[in-house]
């Protein structure tokens, strides 16, 4: 909502200063997002009278040389490109050299006028259009004033509020009263503690109405509880005077004609939307608020044809709808240049009904914006009176005694009475507010005192505050005017209460920290993406957004892998050949209907949501291993497995087991994947990316991915027990074996360990060799075996050699291995 400081100031009868007003309003909940100074350039602009004109002697462009009189400042000849230069005697606006003028072009919005020749002739200024003076949006020609103003008069002396500040107010949905200057002025007055009398309409003379000037109004719907109408005759529809056009322009509305402009002006003043009709096109001079008939058609002012339903409320004449109630008027009943007789309408509509209509028809109008928030239901008579006053002045019309008011089928509930306890005010605000101050604040905001007792007051809420219905709402009003910044600081006495709604916050954090420590970078992808993205890794999304930003952002991610591959792909495209990315995040799937958490009540009680949500841990490795000035090769599935092993070691000091069981994910490479487990819990899979999926991401063969369950990763937390390290040295023996590759290395190692007996504390592969000189299908594997002493008994070479021999014998026997 744009608020004119000058208008506000006029309503208040005070000039407290724009900065102060902006600060006070912001503190009190009407946040001023921006203050825009306008009209600072108008100080030098003068009213000029055209004395004579002649065509430019040389220019091929249609330029006119205009001699204008500036009163005591004499006459000047000005080059003018406009086509609407008036005949001698006409009044125009003259901006002398030095004035800032506007271009209407956002790229270079303004410049300062300098004396420079136009087509060979030097002017000492220019005759300006509305755009050039930023007084309107009309660029069809220069401003020609209708008013009789002496030549040489300063514009600012005849244009009230020419130099103004526009306050851009962020009006929250609970403050419909602040959608007009009146409501904002009331707040300012309360905050400044100055008297404020609101807006009053001057009584305008009227004459008795003839029979054909009488109108009939009726409300047949509960959604319209009040409908006021009035009639004016002998109106002249024309352009509004400059003060009105410029004011609307500055507040963001387009000036149309004096009737529509007056209607908008009243809306901006009171916050009451209203409408004017050409009485002569209203069938039978009858206006009815009613439900639309299913299938009824209305062309609205935005030139769209709308098919209505019974849920819509229309304003109709005796034959057809003429407007969508509270939302938008209809084409054909509006004001034209030929309109003579005006029907004024100001009504009150049910907020929810208007909101649903506006949503259904996808219209967001100034009227619907206000009605859906709740307009003061007692405002229509004042709006009608102000409209009459303005229209008589602007159109020269005459008011006839044809005012009518229709009431809806149900009476509007009176505004509530609310008891406010002193103790509660203090308990909520944390500071006591004196009864005197409380009464002053409430009175200034329009609350009337109904009853008063030592410990409480009872007040009636003003009709323009539909959001205030309870004690707590009144306390907020007291607080925001009293000054929330006066609330002191207090320390919460810690209750030591533990959270009840607990999920996996600390587990996510531990895994993130661990993966960062292992040298991976963390990604955060959107939880939704294109179906096609997930399909490109062979996974189908089962949960989706009904109203996505675009159809390629509708699928809730069923896997983290796709997003990470997309990220890796981006990095590779940017020329990065080494990628190490992980993500810890939620994946989503639709619940089966027999899922115990499929209904809202049970799921909420279990701190679950409507979708099945699971936290996963995923990473992608691409490109060469970390190395230095040499080729360490590219990553493969064992690099991925290593990350998981290190992760599990750092989380729980546990061993990871790999096998090729279970159902491998579609992105797994069948020759290079592993199912990883700890104990009897499956963590997930690690694999080189399936070759057929590399193309879509333009990733190299050295792309390794893993996706694991956070729950499984963090579920195992064995109790760790410290060992007392032996003071005696352990001993190491290396063993090389030639063995068939069909025997997993883990089996070989396990047999060695088994065969070596209980003093053997570790068997670690340290070398593996495959070569042509080896027997077909065999490889050479070398293990380092460690033996640790027990107690204070030193190991001897002889006993260790014996154990190693036994171990080797075991492998030789079981796997037909050959020691090398």
């Amino acid at each position, binding site marked *: 909502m744009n608020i004119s400081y000058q208008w506000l100031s006029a309503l208040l009868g005070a000039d407290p200063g724009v900065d102060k007003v902006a600060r006070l309003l912001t503190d009190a909940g009407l946040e001023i997002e921006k203050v825009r100074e306008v009209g600072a350039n108008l100080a030098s602009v003068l009213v000029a009278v055209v004395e004579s004109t002649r065509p430019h002697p040389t220019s091929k462009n249609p330029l006119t040389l205009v001699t204008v009189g500036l009163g005591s400042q004499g006459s000047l000849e000005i080059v003018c490109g406009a086509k609407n230069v008036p005949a001698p005697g006409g009044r125009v606006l003259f901006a002398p050299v030095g004035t800032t003028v506007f271009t209407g072009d956002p790229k270079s919005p303004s410049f300062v006028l300098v004396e420079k020749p136009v087509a060979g002739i030097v002017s000492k200024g220019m005759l300006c259009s509305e755009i050039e003076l930023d007084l309107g949006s009309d660029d069809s020609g220069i401003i020609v004033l209708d008013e009789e103003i002496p030549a040489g008069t300063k514009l600012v002396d005849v244009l009230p509020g020419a130099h103004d500040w526009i306050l851009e107010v962020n009006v929250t*949905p609970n403050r419909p009263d602040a959608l007009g200057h009146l409501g904002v002025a009331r707040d300012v007055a309360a905050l400044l503690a100055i008297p404020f009398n609101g807006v009053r309409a001057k009584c305008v003379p009227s004459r008795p109405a003839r029979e054909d000037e009488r109108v009939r109004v009726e409300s047949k719907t509960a959604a319209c509880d009040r409908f006021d109408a009035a009639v004016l005759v002998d109106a002249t529809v024309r352009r509004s005077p400059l003060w009105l056009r410029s004011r609307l322009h500055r507040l963001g509305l387009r000036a149309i004609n004096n009737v529509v402009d007056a209607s908008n002006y009243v809306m901006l003043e009171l916050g009451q939307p209203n409408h004017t009709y050409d009485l002569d096109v209203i069938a039978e001079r009858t206006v009815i608020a009613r439900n639309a008939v299913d299938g009824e058609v209305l062309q609205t002012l935005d030139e769209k044809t709308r098919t209505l339903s019974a849920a819509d409320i229309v304003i109709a004449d005796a034959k057809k709808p003429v407007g969508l109630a509270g939302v938008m008027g209809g084409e054909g009943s509006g004001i034209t240049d030929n309109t003579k007789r005006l029907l004024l309408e100001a009504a009150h509509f049910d907020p929810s009904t208007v909101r649903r209509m506006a949503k259904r028809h996808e219209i967001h109008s100034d009227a619907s914006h206000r009605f859906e928030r709740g307009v003061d239901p007692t405002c229509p008579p004042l709006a009608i009176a102000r409209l009459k006053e303005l229209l008589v002045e602007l159109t020269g019309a005459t008011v006839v005694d044809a005012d009518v008011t229709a009431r809806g089928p149900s009476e509007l509930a009176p505004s509530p009475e609310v008891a406010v306890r002193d103790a509660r005010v203090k308990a909520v605000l944390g500071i006591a507010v004196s009864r005197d101050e409380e009464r002053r604040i409430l009175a200034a905001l329009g609350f009337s005192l109904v009853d008063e007792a030592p410990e409480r007051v009872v007040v009636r809420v003003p009709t323009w505050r539909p959001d205030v219905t309870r004690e707590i709402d009144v306390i*907020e009003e007291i607080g925001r005017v009293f000054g929330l910044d006066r609330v002191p600081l207090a320390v919460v006495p810690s209750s030591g209460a533990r959270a009840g709604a607990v999920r996996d916050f600390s587990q996510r954090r531990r895994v993130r920290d661990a993966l960062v420590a292992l040298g991976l970078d963390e990604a955060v992808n959107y*939880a*939704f993406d294109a179906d096609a993205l997930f399909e490109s890794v062979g996974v189908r999304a089962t949960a989706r957004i009904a109203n996505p930003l675009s159809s390629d952002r509708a699928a809730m991610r069923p896997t983290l892998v796709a997003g990470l591959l997309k990220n890796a792909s981006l990095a590779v495209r940017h020329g*990065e050949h080494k990628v190490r990315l992980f993500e810890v995040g939620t994946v989503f799937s639709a619940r089966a209907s027999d899922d115990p958490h499929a209904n809202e009540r049970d799921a909420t009680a279990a701190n679950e*949501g409507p979708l099945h949500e699971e936290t996963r841990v995923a990473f992608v490795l691409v490109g060469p291993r970390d190395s230095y000035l040499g080729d360490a090769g590219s990553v493969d599935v064992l690099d991925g497995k290593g990350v998981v092993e290190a992760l599990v070691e750092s989380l729980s000091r546990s061993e990871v087991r790999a096998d090729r069981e279970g159902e491998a994910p579609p992105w797994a490479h069948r020759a290079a994947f592993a199912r990883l487990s700890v104990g009897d819990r499956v963590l997930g899979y690690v694999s080189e990316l399936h070759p057929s999926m590399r193309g879509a991401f333009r990733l190299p063969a050295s792309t390794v991915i893993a996706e694991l369950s956070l729950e499984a990763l963090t579920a195992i937390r064995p109790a760790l027990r410290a060992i007392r390290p032996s003071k005696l040295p352990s001993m190491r023996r290396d063993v090389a074996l030639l063995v068939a590759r069909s025997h997993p290395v883990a089996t070989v190692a396990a047999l060695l360990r088994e065969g070596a007996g209980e003093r053997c504390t570790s068997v670690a592969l340290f070398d593996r060799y495959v070569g042509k000189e080896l027997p077909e299908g065999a490889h050479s594997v070398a293990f380092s075996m460690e033996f640790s002493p027990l107690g204070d008994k030193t190991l001897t070479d002889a006993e260790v050699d014996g154990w190693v021999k036994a171990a080797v014998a075991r492998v030789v026997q079981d796997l037909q291995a050959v020691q090398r």
Partner: protein
Amino acid sequence: MEALDAIEREVDSAFAPVRDEQELRATHAKFLGKEGSLTEIMRRMPELAPAEKKTFGQAVNRVKTAVEAASEAAEVRLRQAALARELDREPTDVTMPGRRPRVGRQHPLHRVLYDVTDIFVSMGFDVAEGPESDWETNNFERLGFPPDHPALDMQDTFFLHNEGRPGPRTLLRTHTSTVQIRELLSHPPPVMIVAPGTVFRCDDDATHSPMFAQIEGLVVDEGISLAHLRGTLATFAQRLFGKDVTTRMRGSYFPFTEPSVELDASCSVCGGRDPHCRLCKGSGWLEVAGAGMVDPIVLSNCGIDPEKYTGFAFGLGIDRLAMIRYQVPSIELLYSNDERFLRSL
């Protein structure tokens, strides 16, 4: 005796040219090894007369000592030479890069999220969480959003496909305030939690991301007032931005708090003195949190007596704090997962 003198004269010149350990041992053996010249002489000792034995023995010992001393000196010389050789090797070009383990980067959003959480935890808050998908009952109704109210427009909502299931509509939560409901339903007061998490709004432009991170705070107990809210957020702002930071509290509107406030912190960069400040844009203030006293209807919707208990709630945008801390030029970068962006922080 003469032979002994000859050996003695030989000692120094024998050890002088020794160049390495092996030569040293050989030279030493030339005198004192099994076949060594001194050993040879000593082997003849028993043949001597007892009177001669003493003098001769003394002489042999003298020569032996000389040999040992020369050997030792040569050894020291060798050690020093070796040390000098090692130290005088071609120096390593230390301008070459170090062989370093790769250092991972935690996402900036999570760094800020955890820092913020830690501050509140240190103040006595526990961490609560709820699901990212939810029902409109928990996201709106129980939080006191009136049906068909423009307040719903404050949060453009992603609804989920319900697949024709009956019951309230399902959605992606628009705020972490859903956790207020879930926490309040989980146990009776006192409640003192922060709830960090991901939220979603149907909004995508230069300043909005359709997914972003929030942290919610909720305290419900007897005797909690707006002063406790202010004290809590002021302490938080000082711990996050610096101890000289002051706060201001101003009116606002959220359907689930009453009164509603915005809490601003004084600009930690310019203190309000720079009209072109990159952080506060000259206003001198930074919006820290939307907050307020828990609306009584929220408490009663969760079966808590609002006459007995009062509480406050607040919500902070983690993305904005991350953008401030790391001077992130646009919000979409936070979700770009561009390695160049991630590794710049």
